[in-house]
């Protein structure tokens, strides 16, 4: 009797199971990602597919925009309740928190996450002591170099300081190996600020001191002077002033740059013989330092995943975020973006084939320097972009350009 009841129940469960997809009210969430640097669109789609397999009741609609459109799209969609999960850059939590764009998820973060994730990664999602998401892309700019060109120029080891970088570039230029050996992303965009910040960190500068702009003198000025000298002396590819990261990658992959500053993702892309002329010749080290001031330099270019205040499905959204940022997912896709989890850096599955990058990452990620944390970041950044370009073009002296940037920064 009992047996037959249990069998009936089992049968019912079986039938019910067959109708599962219909029985569950399927929840659909919208997520906004970027199609530029770090994980490729294909990677994000593959991760999401794995998530959907594990959670058939949650449907994730993905949307990709270029980095330049990410901030504005996120803010504009708030009114219409467009996205549940958004990718955000390290420079936005201050503004998003003050404007109530992202949900405070401090309570959702487990002890396990707190212990496992690298301490530096948390700065990406934190503002005023609260966490507004999970770090996802842990990234900084590295100095990439073309081993073959350095060898031809008789250079034994890549530069340890920015002055050495200029000297080595000069040797390469003088030997006629390349007319303009260094490539940067100095277009009127955030990319230029990332390169500038790397140099500011090398020169020990400050963006803001006691709430007031402080980049007009000291390290901030030294950094811009270095850029201008490198540009006007012909060591830097003059087209750098209209390059974004992808342009730098193409130039480097074509063997037309001996040195290039770029994010993690370039390492494995430039080493792919299908796409790159310099596969197997790609060297990577942390961005150099300045004698007496720093050993290496790095900008915090990390990004996180957060839940918008407009989301009607925060539970499902958090489930998705937890999956995307899990150690298992990140280890599996560690070729274009390195994991946020400390123990991954000793996992052979992650390090295999990219030992050089991992070695550079250990130094670079520990030295990551933040861009200023302020709700008015967009204004500050826009003013600095203008100052950098005016100085490069010779329209203004670096000190004057930075002074007017400080005045127009809204701070």
């Amino acid at each position, binding site marked *: 009797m009992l047996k037959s009841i249990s069998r009936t129940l089992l049968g019912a469960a079986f039938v019910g199971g067959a109708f599962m997809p219909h029985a569950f009210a399927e929840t659909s969430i919208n997520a906004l990602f970027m199609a530029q640097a770090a994980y490729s669109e294909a990677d994000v789609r593959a991760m999401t597919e794995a998530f959907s397999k594990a959670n058939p009741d949650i449907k994730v609609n993905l949307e990709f925009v270029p980095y330049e459109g990410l901030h504005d799209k996120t803010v504009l969609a708030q009114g219409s309740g467009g996205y549940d999960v958004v990718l955000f850059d390290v420079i936005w939590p201050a503004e998003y928190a003050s404007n109530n764009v992202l949900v405070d998820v401090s309570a959702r973060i487990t002890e396990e996450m707190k212990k496992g994730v690298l301490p530096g990664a948390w700065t990406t999602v934190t503002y005023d002591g609260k966490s507004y998401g999970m770090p996802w892309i842990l990234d900084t700019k590295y100095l990439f170099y073309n081993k073959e060109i350095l060898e031809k120029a008789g250079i034994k080891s890549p530069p340890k300081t920015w002055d050495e970088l200029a000297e080595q570039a000069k040797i390469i230029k003088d030997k006629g190996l390349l007319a303009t050996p260094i490539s940067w992303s100095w277009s*009127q965009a955030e990319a230029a600020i990332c390169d500038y910040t790397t140099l500011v960190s090398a020169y020990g500068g400050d963006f803001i001191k006691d709430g007031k702009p402080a980049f007009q003198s000291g390290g901030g000025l030294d950094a811009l002077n270095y850029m201008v000298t490198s540009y006007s002396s012909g060591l830097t590819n003059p087209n750098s*002033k209209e390059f974004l990261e992808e342009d730098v990658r*193409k130039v480097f992959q074509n063997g*037309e740059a001996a040195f290039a500053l770029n994010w993690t993702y370039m390492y494995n892309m430039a080493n792919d013989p299908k796409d790159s002329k310099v596969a197997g010749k790609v060297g990577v080290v942390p961005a150099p330092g300045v004698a007496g001031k720093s050993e290496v330099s790095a900008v915090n270019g990390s990004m996180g995943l957060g839940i918008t205040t407009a989301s009607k499905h925060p539970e499902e959204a958090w489930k998705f975020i937890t999956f995307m940022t899990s150690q298992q997912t990140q280890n599996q896709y560690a070729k274009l973006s390195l994991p946020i989890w400390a123990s991954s850096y000793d996992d052979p599955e992650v390090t295999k084939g990219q030992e050089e990058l991992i070695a550079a990452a250990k130094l670079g990620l520990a030295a990551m320097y933040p861009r200023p944390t302020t709700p008015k970041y967009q204004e500050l950044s826009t003013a600095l972009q203008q100052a950098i*370009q005016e100085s490069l073009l010779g329209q203004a002296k670096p000190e004057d350009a930075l002074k007017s940037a400080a005045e127009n920064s809204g701070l």
Partner: protein
Amino acid sequence: MSGSWMTTRAWLLMLPLLAVMISVIGWPLVDTVRLSFTDARLVGTEGSFVGLDNYARMLSGANFQRTLVTTTWFAVISVAAEMVLGVLAALLLNQQFYGRTVLRALMILPWALPTVVNATLWRLIYNPEYGALNAALTQAGLLDAYRSWLGEPNTALAALIVADCWKNFPLVALIALAALQAVPRDITAASMVDGAGPIARFRFVILPYLVGPLLVALVLRTIEAFKVFDIIWVMTRGGPANSTRTLSILVYQEAFSFQRAGSGASLALIVTLLVTVLAVAYAALVRKAAGSAS
């Protein structure tokens, strides 16, 4: 009696359309005017009344004056070039020759292209490392080395104007071509018999037929060019060093990037006012031209 019924009927028939226009154009416009007197932010605060502060700040800022100059240059040169190119293309396509139909269809292509696609195409053409323009000019011996067209302030705006012209001259050509079809054959034939050369024929016989339609094209194109945003946003984002930043880009930055909805709205209304002045001036011109034609 029947006259007033006609009026009532006309209003009744227009009512649905008017209702739609009031809700999608009228109301947002009124709300923009309200916003422009507040310090509202895009997200967060509703803002409080600040009087004419936004207008004063926007109009006195160095950014506004510089962008107004850039925008005017862009509008004047691109529209002038489009008018000349458009009329020349129309004159050519009005001739009898083999393959004319194919050419007429092909000419529409750039205009039919979405602006973003057009901008991306031209970015590739201007690319400083592997762009077609650099390749063509160096191979023809006109240029010593590849150069950065969109990275230099003195070429960036010109490069944008060329891209914009390529896209928009077909509209002018299309309007001019339609007007040319209306020129009676016997008048041109008679002027030829009278010994008028091609230039005199164009000036005295054909041009009077073109003036009215061309003025319409001029109004449309000037207003569009003055409001230009997308092609520039895709190609230079206003760079290098803000040398290609137009009024619309300034509005976008103020309202959306910096999230100051209040001052963004005031700036948008200033632009609207400028465009309205242009439109009214042109409308007067069109009326005058129509008056002298009849």
